[in-house]
Structure formats: structure tokens, C-alpha cells
């Protein structure tokens, strides 16, 4: 099972400038955990201390938001995950 994560600009300095990663899992949470295992430095920019997604991080699967399910959202082979910072800067 292979799912692609598009690595956003704000994480690339922590992924050796990689722009995409292949991950495994049946949920968004599994996939992000796999991603963090590959690139451990990204964890603090994705999750809070309790392991929840940061409030200003939004995850999309195939262009659709996963909110409010987020980490429990089911994914399947071939899906594409995108990570976006929520726009909040005036």
C-alpha cells in the first residue's frame, strides 16, 4: 500500500528539500506517523505534545479536507495527502 504525501514549503527544510514522500497506513494518522518516522524533525511542526494535529495545520486527501476526522480519516492505495498551514496572517 503506497500513499503519497506532498511536502509543503514550510516543511521542506526538514526533509532535505524533498517535495514528496511515500508512506504507508490505513488512516491519515498512520501515514503522518510514517512520514514523521522518515523525517523526525517535522514532528514539532505537525503535532502538539498530546499527539494531536496542531490547530493551524490542515490535512487534505485528494484535495478534500479531512477535518474534523483528521487523523482517523481512512485512506487507500494511491491517495495523495497534502498538508496546509491555515491562512491567518493579515
Amino acid at each position, binding site marked *: 500500500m503506497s500513499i503519497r504525501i506532498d511536502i509543503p514549503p*514550510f516543511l521542506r527544510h526538514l526533509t532535505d528539500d524533498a517535495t514528496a514522500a511515500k508512506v504507508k497506513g490505513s488512516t491519515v494518522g498512520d501515514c503522518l506517523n510514517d512520514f514523521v518516522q522518515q523525517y523526525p524533525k517535522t514532528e514539532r511542526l505537525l503535532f502538539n505534545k498530546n499527539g494531536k494535529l496542531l490547530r493551524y495545520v490542515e490535512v487534505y486527501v485528494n484535495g478534500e479536507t479531512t477535518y474534523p476526522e483528521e487523523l482517523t480519516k481512512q485512506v487507500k492505495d494511491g491517495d495523495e495527502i497534502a498538508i496546509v498551514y491555515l491562512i491567518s496572517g493579515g
Partner: protein
Amino acid sequence: MKGITRKFLRINLSNGKIGEEAIPEPVETDFIGGRGFGIHYLYREVAAKTEPLGEQNKLIFAAGPLAGTNAQAVSRWMVCTKSPLTGAFARSVAGADFGAWIKFAGYDFILVEGKAERPVYIHLTRDACQIEPADELWSKDTVVTQEWLSQRHGLNTRVACIGPGGENLVKYAAIVTNRRTASRCGVGAVMGSKNLKAIAINAERNLQLHDPEGFKQLVKQQIQTMTASKGFQHHREMGTTGNPENTSELGIFPSRNFRYGRLDDYEKIVGEEYLKRRVGEFGCYSCAARCGKVHRVTTGPYAGAQSSGPEYESIWAFSGPIENSYLESTIAADQLCDDLGIDTISTGNTIGFAYELYEKGLLTKKDTDGLELKYGNHKAMVELVKKIARREGIGDLLAEGTMRVAARIGKGAEAFAINVKGLELPAYEPRGAKSLGFNYATSNIGGSHGYGYAPQEVFGALFPRKVDRFAEEENADIVVFNQNNGAVGEVGIVCVFARAWFPHLYDKLLIAATGIDKIAERGYLPRVGERIVNLERAFIVREGFGRKQDTLPQRMLSEPLHTRGAPGEGQMMRNLDKFLDRYYEIRGWTPQGIPSPEKLKELGLGYVIKDMAQSQNVRAT
């Protein structure tokens, strides 16, 4: 058509004439409202070379076609004029209730022209409009002014006013309503130059929509979609105070007058720190987000200061430029700017510039009234805010903005002046967010993030495509898209944050409100946005702007960015010329940045062609 009132109010302060005028139907369909109406009338009525602070300049206070309805986050309003700071087109957007009240008074916009002999304010109701004396209000701050007008005309009054900054013609003075501001480009100075202290509107809700039932259903859908989005939840909770953390992580939080990409101790100014000092919140008309957060200082030298903010830009303006992480001083400076009516961005940027001039020995204690402008000295920063608004001592010079200060000081000071076309750059470092940087370079109002905000590279937004934030001419299409799309958002004057929470409903709301069915046609709204940007471009070309002025501060073109460990170390804007070539090509403009006759005809702007042919790109700076 409804939603659009099809009329505006012209108020001449020189001769006291006041009258309603109709907005012709083709203007409605071509420009829809808001910024579209603003540039359409400004282009026709403000001749080239008009003195921005002279009697001939005009001020347009515009609401959008959705303002005053119960749709969410669409009642913002804007001022359009010729800027005294840049000499270019100016549009400055604000929130609160005033946009709704313009519509309740029965108008799509209010056009003010001429100059009053003495200080006046305009009192507008649905049935009458009076020009009233304002001698008693002159020199009063924006809080006192609004309270005075509310007491005189009742609690149902909404006011847009200037403070001492506008009266003193600070080149970047703001217009304030409630605690929101139309602050960029010096629109408040234009108001001051006309001896116009305020516009006060008393009106009750009274709107007619083209399709009331359809609109009602869309609003229901809008509220459901919006409140279910994570973006809304985040914005509701934090406003824009969470952003310093994001931009610092990216290395694009400009520090020490745009030499570094973040503060060393940026964790002291992040959203969580502001949360600890939060004492309230407020919002705009018909918006559940209530993203305005009120902060109070309880200890230290600024104890008692309370600001209805600061928003992200103001957090930056009074921390980044002078390397200051004492956020109590940021709150105090923000409050002063709102009270005195000056733009936080240009104020903070200009103060950062003064600190660098002091560092380089181009300003000394003799020049600064004894203030020591050493990085981190927040007390001097707060003093400078007061001096600028009142034009006291060194403040009289700094009130002119970085471009004019540099010209007066000479000796190479221009190298440290961080503006585009005279408008001070905001809180995003161009070298680390290059599409935003090139938007600054080509924006028709100067160095504005709001003119063509680039969420793709700052936040990883996926539409219209993903971008590499360090790419240059490869992203020229993105800059064009963002600028046109920004103009589309500002015909309805929807909140830039909120639009992302109901992306498919904005067009539909516009149609239900106005009955302009063409909006449903594929590509119609983008074409309206493109038309607006082109007409704004024509306005500034007529003033002598062109390729030479589509540039960036020398620092961005010649000095590598230092990011203090964040990504982007060593970045510079390397290919400005290549970018401009590509950008002009996509725009359909000449290599000198002038809209071509073919493009103007295509956009229905044929009447502009003659002006472009006559315009010489002769501006000296």
C-alpha cells in the same frame, strides 16, 4: 438590479453641493462593486498629475454588493484615492460595521471631493446629508472622536474618522472605524487635507436583494460550511496572532530592518504569549469569527495599555524592524497608532529604517531629540510613534515615510529604505516568499501584501497550483493569478481569510444579491479582476510609473537574507528582469510595463488606449 444600489453620493466640500448620481448598468456589470467602482471613477475623475493632498484629489468610500446582508464576512469596505505616500493608486481596506452602514444609507459608495475651509464632518442618514462643523473635534484622537459623534447622533451611528495623524498630513495616516483601520497608502492624510474629520452615518438595515429566498439558502449553506472548517475554528480562536510562529519557522519574519528572517527569541512573541494577555474579542458586521483580539498590559512600563489588536502585521511592525521581543511595548505602540490614526506597517517599518540610519551614523542623538535608537530599545520606538503622529521633532521627518526620508538625508540612506514605489513593505520577507516579493514589485499600490497575497508559498495552499517559494520567473503566472484574484475578492469586499472557508459560495452570493447572471459564466469574475488591475495599472502609468518603478528595495536585490537557522539562508531576488519580462508577457503589457492596446480592447478599456499612448515613462524615482 438589486444588492447594488445603483447610485452613489457625491459630496463637494468646496461648494457644499451634495447629490446622488446613478451608476450606469455597464459599469455595474463590468466592475460589480467595491474596488471595481473605486478605480473606474477615480480613473475618470482624478486627472494625471493631480496633487494628492490638493483640492482636486477625490476620496471614494466604497462598500461591496454583499455589505449589510446577513452573509458572513462580506461587509468590509475600502477607500480609493490617489496616494500622497506613493503618488500612485491607493486602495485601503477596513472592517467593522462601516461598510454595512454605507449600504444602509442607500449607496454603493460615497465620493468626497473639494476641500472645506474649516474642519468639518459629514453626517449622513438615509434621508439627508449635512456638512457639519468639526472645530471641536479637530486634534482629538479617534476614540474621543467616535464617542463624541455617537453621543451627538445616537448609538446607531457608525463613524470613519481621522486622528491627529491625518490632520497633520502624516503621509501614511489611517482612517479609523471602531478599532479597525483603512490604513495603507496615506488615505487618512487625504481626508485631513480636505479638512474632513469624519463621516458619521445613521441608518437602519434596509436592503433589497435580487433573489432573497435564494440568498437566504446560500447564507445558510455558507454558515454551515464556514463554521465546519478548521480554518474558521483556528481564526476564531487565535485571529492572526498565531502567524509570527509560522513565518518565523519559514524565515520570512523580517527582522532588523529586513536583514534577518526572524527574531532570535521569536518564541516570546507567538500567539500563545498574546493569548496570556487577551482580555476580549470583537468582530466585523455579520461575521461569527470575531477574530479581533483585545490585549491588555498589566505590568511594567506600559501597564494600562490596551489594544484591539495587534494583528499579525502590527505584531511584526513593532517587533521585527527594531529587534524587539517585549510584546507589551508592541501592544502599547499598536494602541497609539489606532488612537492617533497612523498605519502600523509604515510606522514600524519607518522606525526600523531610522534605527538603521542611527546605527550607520546617518542619524545621531542630535537628530533624534535625544532618543537612542539602538536595536531593542522599545521605549524609543513608542516615543517615535507619538512624535510621528504629531510631527514633533524627528517625527516630522519620519512622518514622510522611508522614500522621502532617504531622499532628504542622502549619503546612501536609500540603500536601507524598505519600500516599493514609496509604500513600506509589510511583514513578509520577499527573499523567502518570492511570489509575494514580486507581487510587491508589481503591485499598483506599492509594497502591499494584500494586493496579491501568495498563500501558496506561505501556507502551502494548493490552488491554482503548488509553488516553490524560492522560484522566481517560473512563478510569474502565480503573481498574476493572485493579483487578479485579490481584485475579485475586493469587488464584494469579502474578508481575505474567510473567502477560503466557503470557496464555492462567493460567486453565488454575488449573483443572488445583484442578479448579474454573467458572474456564473466561466472566467467572468477572473476577467473582472484582470480589468480592475489593468485599469489601476493605466492609472499609475498615466502618472509616469513603469518598469523602472516595478522593482524592490536594493537590499533584496543585492544582499543575501540571513535566517538565523530557518530555511532560506542566502536567498536574494536574482532575476527581477527575467521575472518582469515574463510577468508583462502574461499580462499582455509592453516590455515597459504598459498595458497594450490589444489587452485594453480585450478588457473593454478602449478609452484608456489614448492615455497610454500619451504617457511617457519619465518618473525620476
